[in-house]
């Protein structure tokens, strides 16, 4: 079983449109949406949810107001600015924990002199197993202002692999998150191949360099595709040269095409519309990626 992860460094370069196209072109894929912060793949693959599971990760500190002696020890110990003090003077102030900033380290819980801080498990979102027209799909939804998206990404990837192994699917196709931090690292470690989708802009170029440094750091083979390449041909060539220098393979170019947005509005992968020039380019790209995977 192979695992292809589509990432980009810079957001909004077309990862999800490319992943959806590949889902429609691949032979019996399992699909995973690992952009759990802002998951969009379901908008074009219309998954029918089979299972839903709550996702708990870590703990969060909660002050029991009525038992708090207002000493401020929690505030002094917290390194994440998560303790809020209302009221001017110690002895009068009330203390509470901002759940969006609490990193669940437990230091305030341990050092509260009257044990007035609870430490329940934290519900961060949910993950789902679904069916699409193209294959089974694992995906997730992170709660508003929740954290630990890296662990939720790892959960989605694990479930997608389980689905593939249970039914002998040859490919897990992963839509990854933007950036180079924790959720991206959780998405790519151990993958067969990364496809970095970029655009011919100064930001696209800059961010691709960093994302290729990351794939090199984790020793994962990488291919590169320039989306909307005809916006700036000279930049496209510069980006492809940089990709080669970083030992990544330029695997294709996709033309700028409003048909991609039209397909999105209709809730379909763009390759469903064969007259779209971007769809034609994505088919060529997919053939090259298939060769690289085998």
């Amino acid at each position, binding site marked *: 079983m192979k695992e292809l992860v589509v990432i980009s460094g810079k957001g909004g370069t077309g990862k999800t449109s490319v992943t959806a196209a590949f889902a429609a072109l691949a032979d019996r894929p399992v699909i995973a949406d690992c952009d759990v912060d802002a998951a969009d793949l379901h908008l074009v693959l219309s998954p029918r949810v089979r299972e839903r599971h709550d996702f708990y990760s870590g703990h969060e500190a909660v002050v029991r107001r009525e038992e708090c002696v207002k000493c401020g020890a929690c505030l002094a110990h917290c390194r994440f600015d998560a303790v809020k003090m209302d009221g001017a003077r110690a002895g009068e102030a009330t203390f509470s924990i901002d759940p969006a900033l609490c990193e669940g380290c437990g230091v305030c819980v341990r050092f509260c002199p009257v044990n007035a801080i609870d430490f329940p498990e934290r519900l961060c979102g949910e993950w789902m197993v679904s069916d699409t027209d193209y294959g089974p799909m694992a995906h997730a939804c992170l709660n508003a202002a929740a954290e630990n998206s890296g662990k939720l990404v790892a959960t989605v990837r694990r479930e997608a692999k389980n689905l593939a192994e249970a039914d002998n699917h040859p490919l897990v196709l992963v839509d990854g998150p933007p950036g180079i931090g924790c959720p991206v690292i959780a998405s790519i470690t151990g993958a067969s191949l990364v496809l970095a989708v970029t655009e011919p802009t100064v930001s696209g170029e800059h961010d691709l360099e960093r994302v290729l440094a990351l794939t090199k750091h984790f020793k994962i083979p990488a291919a590169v595709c320039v989306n909307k390449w005809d916006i700036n041909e000279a930049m496209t060539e510069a980006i492809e040269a940089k990709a080669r220098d970083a030992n990544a393979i330029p695997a294709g170019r996709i033309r700028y095409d409003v048909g991609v947005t039209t397909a999105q509005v209709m*809730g379909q992968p763009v390759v469903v519309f064969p007259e779209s020039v971007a769809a034609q380019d994505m088919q060529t790209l997919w053939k090259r990626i298939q060769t690289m995977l085998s």
Partner: protein
Amino acid sequence: MILAVASGKGGTGKTTVSANMARALDVDAQLLDCDVEEPNAHLFLRGEVLDTEVVGIPTPQVDPSLCDGCNACGAFCEYSAIVSFGKAPILFPEMCHGCGGCMKVCPRGAITEKDRRIGVLETFQSHNVMLTHGRLDVGVAMAPPLIRAVKGKMRGDAAAILDAPPGTSCPVIATLRGVDYALLVTEPTPFGLHDLRLAVAMTREINIPFGVLVNRVGVGDDRVQRFCDQENIPILMEIPDDRGIAEAHSRGQLMVDALPEYKERFQALFESIENLTRENPDGKSE
């Protein structure tokens, strides 16, 4: 005023908006690029580097001559970053959040802290704009401590514009915390609308007043505008889909330089946000 420019979806134009608005102000302004995984504002606001600073987070180091292998540290650590099997503990610094808990619970005082480098801060001066960004080292997972370091450079004597990372999780929260207003940038597509809904839920959750800027108007459909109407969210500016803007952007050119009429539009945008925060200093926008 402290203004954050954010979005659920990536690539909607956060950096374009924040860099152009900062430049359009004419007066002294600070731009803090909090997208430390992929900082881009310096590609548009080129300037001389004034200062660089290495940023680290405190991680434990153990004096084996004092450690008796009791594993109080390992039992305490929520992140499995330190663990002992009857002798001096093994450290996994990349898992460490720097909470200081292991050092505080060690009964023999065997643990001290040293900084582990996670990235750098760089400050540039580009005309009227002082730009500070963080650059996370490749392979480092945790962005929030570096974001807090970027925000630590806020001087307080000039307008501050914060360019947020995409998404809705901890790096975005670390950026938005404490700002006066959030401008959510989106595009009129199904992905743009879906991620705007998430960004709205997040911004309401942390209780920050906000408005919307719709970029690339003319592509997609009008569902973003209808959503904002229904939810009573002000749309503060619309930028049309324009190949000229896209091409100037691809070369790293600011809109206010390529298309001078945008200077006034970005000034007006900033003024309208200033007025909104003045009218309603502690409340939400709805």
